[in-house]
């Protein structure tokens, strides 16, 4: 892949002590921005990406040449209106789109860091990205938002910096990664590690790629992003370019072919070790761990206005888990709104053109900015 040299990045000099104990310094953080920062510097929105996202939230991703992952949401006159707001999105540390991650080059050895990369957490990701406020000389953000792992980062951001954003919109997420979600992530990691080309994480040194394992990981995860109803309606038992089943293990069904395709395009743009590290960070996410399970305590000092959004058919981060956050905020009388959007599109709803979602987001953001 070419074009990495053109990616915007800052080198963060300030040392960051990771939760695992390792301190990192002089590390790159790749980012992208949309819209313009106004003179008062009160229109900045920080968007956090999900597991396989990156900083290219809108427009064309110059590396993959595909539309940004939140193109439905970010752009002129869209929910996050780039005519009004200055939107910042960074690639998380541990990622593979220019930020410090397993595919970064180790300065000492001159080789890719690979499996020697320290284990990171959502907290580490957020603390690294917080440096962007200094970089842009922004004292306080107008909004922090994101879906799925992006939503977890929103929660962590407010927990760490209670007065650094006016509003917060965590979408389709959870304050504590569930056993089921850890299980699915473990399935993905095991698929990668079972690939003989993974080479204990040192595949890059041997010019190999655990593409099959990563592809299976993506296929399994992709199922969890959809809903049963959505799958049934889109694919049913339809056959793939054939009139009848072939009594073999080729992709007879369209759903099989679709998943294989999703897996195959994913390996071109994503690093297998990054997948291990980022899923691990999600698994370790348990925001109320240090307050004996009392999530309210985590947000005790915040004056941030929250709006939490879930989706009816999302079984990966179901409404009940989103509601836990609402309940915790209500318990401390925080300013919190909540909407469960009706959608058949499963967890992926937040990435898709779901009008009820996009409209509610736009209305909330615009109304909050006015006040």
């Amino acid at each position, binding site marked *: 892949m070419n074009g990495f040299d053109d990616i915007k990045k800052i080198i963060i000099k300030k040392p960051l002590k990771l939760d695992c104990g390792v301190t990192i310094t002089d590390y790159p953080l790749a980012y992208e921005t949309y819209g313009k920062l106004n003179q008062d510097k009160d229109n900045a929105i920080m968007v956090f990406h999900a597991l396989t996202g990156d900083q290219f939230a809108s427009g064309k991703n110059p590396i993959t040449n595909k539309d940004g992952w939140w193109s439905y949401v970010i752009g002129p006159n869209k929910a996050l209106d780039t005519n009004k707001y200055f939107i910042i999105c960074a690639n998380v540390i541990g990622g593979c789109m220019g930020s410090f991650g397993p595919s970064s080059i180790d300065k000492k050895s001159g080789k890719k860091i690979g499996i020697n990369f320290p284990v990171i957490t959502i907290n580490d990701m957020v603390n690294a990205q917080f440096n962007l406020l200094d970089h842009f000389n922004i004292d306080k953000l107008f909004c922090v938002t994101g879906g799925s792992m992006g939503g977890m980062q929103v929660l962590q951001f407010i927990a760490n910096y209670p007065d650094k954003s006016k509003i917060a919109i965590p979408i389709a997420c959870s304050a504590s990664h569930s056993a089921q979600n850890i299980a699915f992530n473990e399935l993905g990691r095991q698929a990668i590690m079972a690939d003989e080309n993974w080479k204990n994480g040192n595949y890059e040194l041997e010019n190999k790629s655990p593409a099959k394992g990563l592809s299976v990981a993506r296929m399994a995860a992709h199922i969890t992003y959809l809903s049963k109803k959505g799958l049934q309606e889109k694919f049913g038992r339809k056959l793939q370019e054939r009139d009848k089943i072939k009594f073999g293990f080729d992709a007879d069904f369209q759903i099989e072919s679709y998943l294989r395709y999703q897996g195959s395009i994913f390996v071109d743009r994503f690093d297998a070790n990054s997948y291990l590290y980022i899923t691990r960070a999600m698994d370790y996410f348990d925001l109320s761990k240090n307050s004996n399970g009392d999530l309210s305590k985590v947000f005790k000092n915040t004056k941030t*206005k929250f*709006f939490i959004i879930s989706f009816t058919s999302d079984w990966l981060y179901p409404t009940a888990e989103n509601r836990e956050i*609402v*309940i915790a905020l*209500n*318990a*401390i*009388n925080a*300013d*919190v*709104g*909540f*909407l*469960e*959007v*009706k959608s058949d599109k499963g967890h992926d709803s937040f990435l898709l053109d779901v009008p*009820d979602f996009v*409209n*509610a987001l736009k*209305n*909330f953001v615009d*109304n*909050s900015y*006015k*006040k």
Partner: protein
Amino acid sequence: MKEEFKIIAKSIQSEKSILDVGCGDGELMKFIYENISKKVRGLEISKDNVQKCIQKGLTVIEGNAEIDLKQFPSNSFDYVILSQTLQAFLNPEKVISDLLRIGKTSIVTIPNFGFWKVRFNLLFKGTMPVTKTLPNEWYNTPNLHMCSIKDFVNFCNDRKINLFKSLALTNNKVSSINKFNLNFKNLTSELGIFLIEK
């Protein structure tokens, strides 16, 4: 804005915190927000109504009062409003006790089943009443626990709930209810508006 909302709004002091339970499309909340207090929030069961509230820039939580009121801490609001919804709950008694717990003052309004038109319907027509404040037929009404003004007053008295202001509304005319005119108001009023405290 309907007369009932005007009376509720008049009962609220400025800059106090308000929770509107079953806030509908946010009409009352918006009025309160613009004229009385910015510290107003809503709880609403209908997704469409929640969207309408968000459109108006109001803070609203999608939820069911019978399940979700319990998450609000005690004495967390100066006022809790429950407008013409009490009769639709499975357990109105539980909801009232939650309102009293959450709010320093609760404002509860009820469509009066003691209203003469209601009685007339049942007495002479022999059919379930359909009136302005009770517009549905028996088979599609959301109302499970209808009560009259007198029933509600008795309910409060039996439970030692401090009923410190009772108003009656008929044809947009407001009047006070007291123990001397209770039977009369119970017959002549479409709507009862009550301010209650623990």
